[in-house]
């Protein structure tokens, strides 16, 4: 019975992800992506990682998806783009990637099920306090590096975006 708590969000996540990659309208796909991310957040919560679940909701479903939404709005993807998508996504195009991915799925399932000591999760909650203590003691260097990465991304995104905006203003 308890496993249902895990499998219900898992199925929701898989199904909504399937919709993400098949939608023609970018806004619709984004909504499905939010659903997928939220259900993964539920899985995190079930597995005893409430802090990660919160971050998943706040940053993934919140910040990142909103960023996507902004760009979709800026590019003004309307009806024409939906038609273009259907032109680009002919059924025949799915065959090759699907075969490839199925083979990968089979091998992955084979490897995972063949793991030597099958085990279950502890079922205990690891709270934000523990995570924070770990994060700022042994992983401090990784946090610093992540900070560098974000700074570089900030500058890079500013640089790329600025030129776009300036050149659009010209005419």
């Amino acid at each position, binding site marked *: 019975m308890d496993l249902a708590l895990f499998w219900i969000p898992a199925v929701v996540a898989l199904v909504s992800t399937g919709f993400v990659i098949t939608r023609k309208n970018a806004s619709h796909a984004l909504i499905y992506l939010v659903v997928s991310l939220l259900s993964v957040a539920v899985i995190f919560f079930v597995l005893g990682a409430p802090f990660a679940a919160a971050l998943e909701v706040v940053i993934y479903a919140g910040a990142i998806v909103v960023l996507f939404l902004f760009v979709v709005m800026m590019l003004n993807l309307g009806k024409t783009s939906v038609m273009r998508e259907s032109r680009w996504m002919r059924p025949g195009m799915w065959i*090759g*990637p699907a075969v*490839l991915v199925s*083979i*990968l799925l089979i*091998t*992955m399932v*084979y*490897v995972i099920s*063949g793991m030597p000591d099958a085990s279950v999760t502890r079922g205990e909650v690891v709270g934000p306090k523990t995570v924070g203590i770990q994060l700022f003691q042994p992983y401090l260097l990784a946090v610093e590096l992540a900070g560098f990465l974000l700074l570089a991304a900030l500058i890079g995104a500013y640089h790329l975006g600025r030129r776009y905006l300036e050149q659009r203003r010209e005419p």
Partner: protein
Amino acid sequence: MLEYLWLVPALPLVGFFVLFVTEGKLPDKLVGVIGAGSVGLAALVALGAGAEFVQSGEGSYAQSLWIWMAVGNFTPSITLYLDPLSLVMTGVITGVGFLIHLFATGYMWKDHEEPEGLSRFFAYMNLFVFAMLMLVLGDNLLVLFLGWEGVGLCSYLLIGFYHRDPENGYAARKAFVVTRVGDTLMAIGLFLLFRELGTLDIQTALGDTGQLDPGMATAIGLLLLGGAVGKSAQVPLQTWLPDAMAGPTPVSALIHAATMVTAGVYLIARMKGIYELAPVAQFAVAIVGLVTLLISSFTALTQTDIKRILAYSTMSQIGYMFMALGVGAWSAGIFHLMTHAFFKALLFLASGSVILALHHEQDIHKMGGLWRKLPVPFASMLIGSLALVALPLTSGFYSKDAILLTAWEHDTGRWFWAGGVLAAFMTALYTTRMMVVAFFGETKTEPDDASRINMWGPLVVLCVLSIAGGWMGIGVLDGLLGPLGEFSHTDPVAVTTVALPIFGVLLGWLVFSGRLDLSTLVASSFGDALRRFWQSGWAFDWVYDRLFVKPFLWVARVNKRDIVDLVFRITASVTRGFHHVGALTQTGRLRWYAANMAIGLIVVFLIVASV
């Protein structure tokens, strides 16, 4: 002063660096001061260190500076080693070297083609002095080899000093390539020595010579002799020295008469322990000396260029030194090295004054009657010639006499004595010819004497040394190097040894001043052929040209496309082919790359699963 021994090589090195780094931007006067001054200071330090060394009465003094490198049990150290042999060499290099540098400040003053020429000249000269000092002071054969190659490089640079004339560049290249043949042999000899004894440290190696089997000692001795022959211009690698006279005259005096060409003598004397184990190699040294001695003294008789006469004379005098080492007259050989450095430097510098006064006229037949007009060079030439001919009481007499009389007593030695005396006679003949033709008779070119004190000063000092060097040698060197031997000067052998050169001088005087007419003999077809044969240096150049140069050029022409290179060209084209194939996978399509990554992932998972 002994602890400042390291300053002796360091000072010329500093001089070189200063002149090298400033690239000729210094005023000429300062260049002269640095160039000559650094060697002069080194001479003073060497004098002080030498005096203290002699007073201390120790057999040797070693000053360890640092370990060059440490590779396993191969740890050559940079150590300066002073013993009587290296002391004599150091004295000659710094002392005579300083006088020649001083002379060169006058000789080279206006005599360079480029504005920075003077600076370049003294930079090379200082570098040469440094390298030569490392050669003689190094306690390790590797350091010796470093100096050996260093002097070779400087010799190359200075022979080609007037580089605007391609002929000089060719002469420099010839000197470099021919000595390289000898250096290769020497390097192989050093490898063998290291393989056998596990060290290149000279004193350690000489202490361990007992471990060498006689065959190996002979091989090493002969290989080292090969190096010595190349450097000292002995048969069969002698052909470069006459051409090396293309360099400025002070270079000829310093490098190609007083110091570098005697490096071979030094090497053999230094490795005495090896040669004493290998009588065959030692005999070969004597033979090389004798053959060179005879060939070059006959050749000198026919040359017309004053510097080439002196070059052949240098070869023959070094031949005496080799012969001395070969017959076991070790200290006499080194003694002759020293006296030869004095009088040959004197001869070269004096001829340099003459050449400068005649605006680069080197043909003795175009000189004539100079004795009245150039008194200082004439007097210097005369004194140098007397020493070269080894007339009694000059320095050359003592050293050459010691060599010849030791050769007489050597078990196989009568032939060496006979050859040596014959060559001494020839020496007298060609020296008299040079003096008579160049300085007497009627004036053919008006000289223009502009020499100053910095030019005739060194000449005077060298004159004194050429005369007094012999007595000094008897007094000081006897104690340092070991006895020269006791010789009676009254028995017939000794009298012949002394008398033949005097007879040669007289005969030369009669013939070349025209009092005894031999022109019919010389003009006969046989005489003419013989003269041309001698003048070409016994046709060695012709033979080498046919034997080595022409075949080499032929092979080079045939193998223009370089067969060996084919292998590398194939490698390159195969690599390029693979590159083209690899480039095909670079479609620029992102999804194609992603698909490939997925395939790679499958492979990785399969590997994981199968393990």
